[in-house]
């Protein structure tokens, strides 16, 4: 039918006689195309699409992402806010909504370092790891794509509205669901196939035994994508899923290099020492240095810092604020401190 009419708009605007004349439609299809209720609901949907200023990209459009197009079950229509590119190198960074500081940190760090190297980060805008992945990509100054399980006019979870706007400015927010669709639970597993479909590889940062990100990993395997997993403490319930992936053959991620290597990309060497460069600029005093040293191994509680560095609580408090002001350390809830990435 599309071959004949060339554009769906013409089908839409065609009268009953024309459709009949084309000889391509059964009477049932013509009836439903002419039905008043159907036409009204389609008009309402168009209104919604226009209202949130979303682009409608069909499987036949030239800007439809080619990686996704060649999967088994590509969505016919993508609603897109922001800008989607046809051929970009994407890596998905996904993980648990409920993650530990370690998981959140790793998600942000990996995404940032990938983004710095010009790789687009795809994720699901969910709480936890997903949000950190988007944030990391934005920090690294790269592009990022958020695939939603609801309409693109909805911010879900609501606290991510601001993040969603930023993603739109530096990439795209896409969904296969009509604007106005509620975030119902059964939509989310289906959108995971888009996340993996868009990407060359899927990095699972932290996932428990029953995490939804494992579904994404399954899709990735079906679609012939690489699966990377960030290892975790074997006692941690938050890493059982990722550790199992590694046992089953997923590529272990001990640094951004492991992903880059697999992607076979030509990398400029200037980007490689991003982290090291950033911290070199600081000039630390004696106390500051010993505190910074104590923080090397991860977040530490203020009491432990004081005890291990042999300083009074008052002194440590004061030094930590100074370090925080210079952007060297970060405070976490519960008076824990960690080095800034």
């Amino acid at each position: 039918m599309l071959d004949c009419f060339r554009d769906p708009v013409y089908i839409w605007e065609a009268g009953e006689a024309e459709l009949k004349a084309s000889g391509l439609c059964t009477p049932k299809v013509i009836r439903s195309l002419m039905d008043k209720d159907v036409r009204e609901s389609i008009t309402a949907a168009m209104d919604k699409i226009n209202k949130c200023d979303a682009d409608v990209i069909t499987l036949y459009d030239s800007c439809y992402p080619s990686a996704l197009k060649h999967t088994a079950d590509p969505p016919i229509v993508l609603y897109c806010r922001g800008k989607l590119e046809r051929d970009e190198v994407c890596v998905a960074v996904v993980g648990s909504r409920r993650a530990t500081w370690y998981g959140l940190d790793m998600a942000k760090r990996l995404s940032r370092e990938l983004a710095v190297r010009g790789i687009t980060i795809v994720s699901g805008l969910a709480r936890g790891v997903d949000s950190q992945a988007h944030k990391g990509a934005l920090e690294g100054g790269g592009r990022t794509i958020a695939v939603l399980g609801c309409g693109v006019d909805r911010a879900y979870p609501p606290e991510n509205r601001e993040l969603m706007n930023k993603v739109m400015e530096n990439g795209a927010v896409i969904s296969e669901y009509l604007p106005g669709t509620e975030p119902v639970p059964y939509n989310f597993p289906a959108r995971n196939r888009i996340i993996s479909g868009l990407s060359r590889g899927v990095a699972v940062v932290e996932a428990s035994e029953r995490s939804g990100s494992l579904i994404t990993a399954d899709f990735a395997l079906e679609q012939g994508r690489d699966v990377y997993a960030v290892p975790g403490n074997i006692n941690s319930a938050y890493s059982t899923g990722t550790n199992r992936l590694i046992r089953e053959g997923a590529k272990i991620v001990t640094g951004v290099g492991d992903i880059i290597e697999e992607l076979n990309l030509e990398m400029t060497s200037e980007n490689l020492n991003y982290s090291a460069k950033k911290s070199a600029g600081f000039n630390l005093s004696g106390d500051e240095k010993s505190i910074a040293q104590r923080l090397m191994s991860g977040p530490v509680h203020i009491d432990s810092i004081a005890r291990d560095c042999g300083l009074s609580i008052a002194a440590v408090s004061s030094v930590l604020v100074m370090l925080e002001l210079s952007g060297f350390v970060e405070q976490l809830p519960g008076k824990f401190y960690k080095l800034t990435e």
Partner: protein
Amino acid sequence: MYSKIKSCGLMGIDGYIVEVETDISSGIPAFDIVGLGDTAIREARERVRSAIKNSGFEFPIRRITMNLAPANLKKEGSSFDLAISLGILASTGIIEHSSLQRSMFIGELALNGCVKPVKGVLPMAVCAVQNGIRYLFLPEANAREASVVRELHIVPVKELKETVSILSGESEIVPFVDTAFDDEDTDGGYTEDFADVKGQENVKRALEVAASGGHNCLMLGSPGCGKTMLARRLPTILPSMTFEEALEVTKIHSIAGILPPGLPLVKARPFRSPHHTISDTGLVGGGSIPRPGEISLAHYGVLFLDELPEFSKKSLESLRQPLEDGVITITRVNATLTYPARTTLICAANPCRCGKFLDPSGQCTCTPGQIQQYIGKMSGPLLDRMDIHIEVSPVKYKDLDSNGPVESSAVIRERVEGARRVQLERYKGMSIYSNSQLQPAMFAKFCRLDSKCRDIMKNVFDRLGMSARAHGRILKVARTIADMDRSEEIKPVHLTEAIQYRSLDRKIWNI
């Protein structure tokens, strides 16, 4: 025949002389008590009748009229029983009228003539001294409480019969002297001590700062991490109470009837921890004749509100004015009374609904929205009165097990007293006495920042995302930390430490 006996009534935390007048005349037998007494006083007629009879005296079958003067003030309670019965006995000539001069009588009677303890004896004793009374007859169980007032002969009595025999000269007056009470002993006798708390050094430090400047605190931490245990120990590091302060606290506790038996003077700073179902009346005081609420019972001590978000909004709102003014004035139909309410407020709350947000294990199941909502429940004007926010983390087993030296309360208290002395000296002749009471207009004079400190302050607001209301609070707390350091001006170290105590104003809470 007519007789007149002195007793005492209570108005707020002060006593006033009540003259119990008795007139017995011929006529139809009756027994009336006038002078705006409450039900307890009306029922005194029955207690007195039986007590007189059972003490072996004759109750006159004549027309008895009694008046409690001043007749325009409402009187309540059972403390007039003893005076009423003696009035009748004096009118019938069993007691010599002259023996009643310069004496005051307080006590409730049992039907068998025993004298039972009453509430509010200390303010009554103070009132007696002020009115030139020499002998205070009171229930034996109240004797120690009244003995705090030294210029008075305390005569403890066990029963009505004994009282009569003393008054008629048959037995000797043996004034009560409490030997166990020693003015010099001001330790307070706390059973808790900061040495009991293992670990939690940063919380202890924060509480020391709070004690030094009289700052109100908010403690956030998961259930079972020791918030209550730490708060309970705050009174032990507050400066010891002066005799005048102790007397004032004892007066309030005496009226409320919560003085522990055998404790003449409350020397330990009170620690009040009302349950979160408390009404606003329970918190600030009230009743037809207003009684002191928890905030007054915590006068010169600590008022601890555990589970702050569970308290009703209305009761929390009612705390605002007394926290600011240090007194609470309650107006009811019968009376308008002012109770002192100068207290350090310590609030505790879980950081979120499931309580595990501050737990590093990351088991919190709350969404950021829920955390915001939970914290939002207690936001607003009351939070604005919290100078110090403390995040309490669960204590680790390593700390519980360690035998390292832990500072005792006495050591910390000594430092706190030093810092308070600095403040008292500085604010001499002003209406305030501690840094927590500094008003914004005084910041320029007492909390001046040099250019380095101002840079830090500016940086803090830019980088850490502090909210504007934090500014004044940081200045006050920095002033206190400088005082603890005996430093005239606020230095960067003082300022930065103060910034640590504003957790809730930071961005991490609005993820």
